[in-house]
């Protein structure tokens, strides 16, 4: 197991700390926009002088409240997020001036209608497909402009193209810092745990100054590299190198990622919307800003896109670069798009890449903890 940094902050701790920091910022008049998804171009939010805060909930606690209005047979992330909004227990939702949703999956799409009754929720209409490319990019570009206009209208401001371009540059710098950090997973033997990668990436959302965030990632990258050079380099490890793919796994990180590493695997790569795949592609810094944003964001490889060939290409490339020995796919309960696509992921991983695959469908509860540990244990036994 890779060691965690001395000042390691758990997700909950970071969330707590962020709450106080955000309250202070709000008191000073800071604009805050709540978002749910990596498809939302945060550059526009920054360009509006606002801070984007992620509202995807990782906790089991608000689910019973969510289930008073939402079906039980629904993704835990959606139920938890809505439950937080309904019970006013999420400070980030509470402090958001406006919520920006998107029509990614059926569950979120319809949940946003109900959320709109609690707080104004502006929903971007994401195309269902990248094909034909020209039509998809044009449609998404006009939705991005509509978001810009909404923000202008909402805050009574004008957002200039220069401001957007500035935000694009800033976000690109951040992407480089994130990516460099996450690419530490390529080291052999590994020097960074997947548990840390996931936690730090998610928790970074609670550091509101983008420059602070960049610094923190750069610092940790240097630290880990140093540790690898002095302590790990040249040593051998028989721990299998695991890639985690599928749904966002923040809510099952302890049950899955931590368990994998405790049972003797090393998670070297997290290929989810909270992982490396959204960081790799930068936004074009020249030319029309809206087209540049549309091109970048339409290429996000979530399973809501149909068909979704880029996900497989990217996955294959990453598996080679990170020398992956086994793939674990996390499906959150009732996430139809990832769940149906899993059939092709398994085929791709096992047949094209010749690597073992384990699919796990789960939710935020602890009920299946033992069963999942058994499966993970058997999977790791199979790899060693």
């Amino acid at each position, binding site marked *: 197991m890779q060691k965690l940094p001395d000042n390691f902050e758990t997700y909950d701790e970071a969330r707590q700390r962020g709450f106080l920091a955000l309250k202070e910022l709000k008191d000073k008049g800071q604009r805050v926009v709540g978002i749910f998804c990596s498809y939302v171009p945060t550059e526009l939010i920054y360009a509006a002088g606002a801070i984007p805060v992620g509202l995807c909930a990782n906790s089991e606690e608000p689910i019973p409240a969510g289930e008073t209005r939402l079906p039980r047979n629904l993704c835990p992330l959606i139920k938890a997020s809505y439950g937080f909004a309904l019970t006013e227990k999420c400070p980030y939702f509470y402090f958001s001036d406006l919520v920006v949703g998107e029509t990614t999956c059926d569950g979120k799409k319809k949940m946003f209608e109900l959320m709109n009754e609690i707080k104004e929720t502006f929903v971007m209409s994401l195309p269902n497909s990248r094909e034909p490319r020209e039509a998809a990019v044009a449609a998404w570009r006009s939705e991005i402009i509509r978001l810009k206009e909404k923000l202008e209208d909402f805050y009574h401001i004008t957002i200039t193209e220069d401001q957007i371009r500035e935000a694009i540059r800033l976000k690109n710098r951040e992407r480089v810092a994130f990516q460099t950090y996450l690419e530490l997973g390529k080291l052999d033997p590994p020097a960074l745990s997947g548990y840390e990668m996931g936690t730090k990436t998610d928790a970074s959302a609670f550091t509101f100054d983008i420059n602070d965030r960049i610094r923190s990632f750069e610092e940790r990258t240097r630290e880990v590299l140093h540790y690898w050079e002095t302590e790990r380099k040249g040593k051998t490890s028989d721990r299998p190198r695991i890639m985690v793919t599928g749904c966002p796994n923040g809510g099952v990180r302890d049950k899955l990622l931590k368990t994998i590493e405790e049972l003797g695997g090393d998670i070297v790569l997290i290929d989810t919307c909270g992982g490396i795949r959204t960081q790799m592609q930068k936004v074009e810094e020249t030319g029309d800003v809206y087209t540049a944003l549309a091109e970048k964001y339409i290429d996000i490889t979530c399973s809501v896109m149909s068909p979704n060939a880029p996900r497989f290409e990217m996955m294959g490339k990453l598996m080679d670069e990170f020398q992956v020995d086994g793939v674990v796919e996390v499906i959150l309960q009732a996430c139809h798009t990832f769940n149906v696509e899993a059939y092709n992921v398994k085929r791709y991983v096992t047949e094209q890449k010749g690597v073992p695959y384990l699919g796990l469908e789960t939710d935020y509860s602890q009920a299946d903890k033992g*069963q999942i540990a058994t*499966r993970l244990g058997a999977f790791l*036994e*199979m790899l060693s």
Partner: protein
Amino acid sequence: MMYYTGIDIGSTAAKIAVLDETGAAIDRFVIPTGWSSRMAAKHIAELLENKGIYVQDTEEHEKNTLVVSTGYGREAVEFADKQVTEITCHAKGAQLLFQKEKAVSVIDVGGQDTKVILVENGLVSDFLMNDKCAAGTGKFIEVMANRLNVDIEEMFELAKAGEPIPISALCTVFAESEVISYIAEGRSREDIASGVIASVANKVATMCKRQRLAEKIVLTGGLSSNSYFAALLSDRLGQPVENSSEGRYAGALGAAMTAKKLGERRSRQRAQVQ
């Protein structure tokens, strides 16, 4: 003499297999798990002791076996030298029982979980396990047997004599109410039992089809001696499913084999140190 003991504690029964230094199976037995896996483990240690196999050093005897535990209750075996999941153990045990076929698919219908394991060249290359619910597991049969007021063996006897009524619920709880409504309709116990067993076979077969199957398919676990169930599965899969009375010991045998491997590794390491 050194022994290698495998203990497979399932939710219903605990299976024990012992190998000698040559790897030959010299003993095997089964006891009901009862309400506590921990108590079952203690009881197993006593039974082994009566046979001259000591899992721990005592005042009179030296420990003379390595123990590997597996199954749902594997963590309750405090004296185990190693714990390994039942998936790996069933795969190893099946390989031993059904002789070195190049590839074999193992179906283990257990009390809590059902697994389909693909074993190639002695190694697990893929496996599937039922999700949280009990449909398609031994538990499902047990619940329905209780409802019909028979034990599991009688349940199968009834099933053989009946014409299956479709039981379609995915969930044990709902299927139970489905069975209750059939009872209320006055359908025969034979037909209901037949429907229950068929529905388990259907569910297990669907799980099998989600995976590449080897040409040789074997049934292990609690239902492994049941040739009626094996025949139902063969029918659903369009491929023969073999069964044997020894199949229930696959997990324990696999665990014992793992213990033997552990012993070999330890003596190698000892030799290196010396």
